[in-house]
């Protein structure tokens, strides 16, 4: 019983990581239809932000909390710049976008290597987030609880922005019908840039949270990018709800399979499962009309 509960928590926490890395992508890929291969490098930028801030600040807890908004701004600005420089010229050319952003991703990795060196760097985690609490015999790692809570907070925040604010309305309007939005007086170019800013900023914040459980190095982003795309594609392009459900289902599935077989086998089975699912439902769990991919 304890084992089952422990593994359930593991599954939920894997799901939270998946959700966190995919959340930004549901905006940029999901809502805008941009295949941004450099998304992982925004995660990396967030992770390095934590590292850079910790040096002068010292206190691990304060620097982690401060790193969240700073990473949002850093990664968001990088995303907005990328959108303004390159992506907005390629909105009708998804294949070119893919190639261009892949190139950008390689350049950003090299840039990180030049600035911070090829080996991984390390940050000190706050003491509170390196232990675990025991509830009814189940061992809950505090770093995992933090990531779970943070992921849910981000989802709630993003949903609130999309649903209730004027900006969210504009984003949805542009996604659903660009021409009509434009004749209604919405500056679609600016909305695009803002959407990209938020999506990339979310990736940056994910990077900060992931320093608690993973390595910080030039290739940090590439560790996560494939999983992020999987979640968005399976969840249904452009649907927040789909991404949330998919992330947790994949997380639980992964943890059950890892426990009963091996990590490698679990990865293969999950991938095969996803391929089979997409054969049956190519549009993913939920659907919405998008601009350039459908």
């Amino acid at each position, binding site marked *: 019983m304890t084992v089952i509960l422990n593994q359930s928590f593991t599954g939920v926490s894997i799901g939270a990581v998946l959700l966190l890395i995919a959340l930004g992508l549901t905006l940029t890929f999901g809502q805008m239809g941009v295949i941004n291969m450099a998304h992982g490098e925004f995660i990396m930028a967030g992770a390095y932000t934590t590292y850079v801030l910790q040096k002068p600040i010292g206190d691990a807890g304060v620097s982690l909390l401060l790193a969240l908004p700073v990473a949002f701004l850093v990664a968001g600005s990088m995303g907005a710049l990328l959108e303004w420089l390159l992506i907005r010229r390629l909105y009708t050319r998804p294949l070119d976008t893919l190639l261009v952003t892949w190139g950008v991703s390689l350049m950003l990795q090299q840039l990180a290597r030049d600035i911070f060196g090829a080996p991984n760097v390390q940050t000190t985690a706050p003491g509170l987030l390196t232990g675990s609490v025991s509830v009814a015999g189940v061992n809950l790692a505090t770093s995992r609880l933090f990531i779970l809570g943070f992921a849910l907070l981000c989802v709630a925040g993003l949903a609130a922005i999309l649903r209730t604010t004027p900006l969210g309305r504009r984003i949805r309007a542009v996604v659903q019908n660009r021409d009509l939005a434009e004749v209604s007086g919405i500056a679609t170019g600016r909305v695009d840039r803002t959407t990209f800013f938020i999506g990339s900023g979310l990736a940056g914040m994910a990077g900060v949270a992931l320093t608690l459980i*993973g390595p910080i190095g030039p290739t940090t982003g590439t560790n996560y990018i494939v999983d992020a795309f999987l979640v968005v594609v399976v969840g249904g392009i452009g649907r927040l709800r789909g991404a949330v459900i998919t992330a947790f289902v994949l997380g639980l599935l992964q943890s059950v399979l890892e426990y009963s077989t091996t990590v490698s086998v679990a990865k293969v089975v999950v991938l095969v499962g996803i391929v089979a699912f997409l054969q049956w439902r190519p549009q993913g769990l939920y659907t919405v009309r998008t601009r350039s991919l459908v």
Partner: protein
Amino acid sequence: MSGLITRRGLLAGISALGAGAALSACGAKTGSDTSKAAGAKADTSGDTVRVGLLNSLSGTMAISEVTVHNALLLAVKEINAAGGVLGKQLKPVSQDGASDWPTFAEKAQALITDSKVVATFGCWTSASRKAVKPVFERNKSLLFYPVQYEGLEQSPYIFYSGATTNQQIVPALDYLKKQGLTKLYLVGSDYVFPRTANKIIKTYAKANGMEVLGEDYAPLGSTEFATIVNKVRSAGADAVFNTLNGDSNVAFFKEYKSAGLTAKKLPVLSVSIAEEEVKSIGTQYLEGQLTAWNYYQTTPGAANEKFVAAYQAAYGKDKPTSDPMEAAYISVHLWKAMVEKAGSFDVEKVKAASDGIEFDAPEGKVTVDGATQHVHKTARIGKVTASGLIEEVWNSGGPIKPDPYLKGYDWAADL
């Protein structure tokens, strides 16, 4: 839209074809080089002789291999300052293996054919060594390989200055057994070295009254270890034997600490974590954990003090020295001693002179075993300290005779 994609698909196809043609052209070139190369001779006519340094200076292995390359350059510099080898100065020729195994083979060939080197030093992964092995054997040229490996190999044209299994993994198991830690859990990356090592561990355990409670592999580069750590925690083991490589170690040790596991409760013994890796994983996650090597930066002795001081003077005060670097450094010195004993750079004469060559190395006295072309080395178990260095807690008392096929161990008969 579909028109666009098709046109681009076509373009992609054409460029792929172009790349294919370029590749096959390369292949043809290498092929002809190879046939020409069979008769290539090392050039020893001038005042200088060239030595090849073959390391990954770019790509994923660069992190580790650049430090080995630095240590090799340091040894060459020292030898030149002391008058060279047989009165000739050494001229290092560096080739970048680029973390890509076929590239290693190509560059090895280039060193032998174009640079006419008298010997080559380098390689790290077993995959790269296996890729260049036929090249050195075909050209009858020497390679000095400086990294601990999985054993079960003995090429006539390779000298192995790192540990084989009976100088690292077997003594580590002896140590665990002596400490009363007899129930083991094996965690490793999913490729040849951990699987071979674990096979040896399981055979040893069976013959020595130890128990292997579980065995788990994660794909190289994997960063999700919650499940594996859960399994480890509920297995009731006394110790974890870790053969993970690279980034996975970072994620594994962070998860390990989060799960409330410590070096005191359940020690982890790692065979791929040296001083450089401790720095990148984070001391707070590793403090108190065990490692198995033949050399640590803290190993006492005048030879090591000199080595560490020289290395840090050349490459930076905060740069640690590690086992593979030390093995690389001594490989150049051992080769020099062999050449001088032989009185010639000739490969066959050097090999014949190799048995019994001694060197006062940073790790202590090492002796070359001519029959296996490996080196007698002292095994050392170390503990990671709060400062991020590793301090020795046990050693084998003296150099262990290399036994790459574990022929001298009764329990290993079935391997």
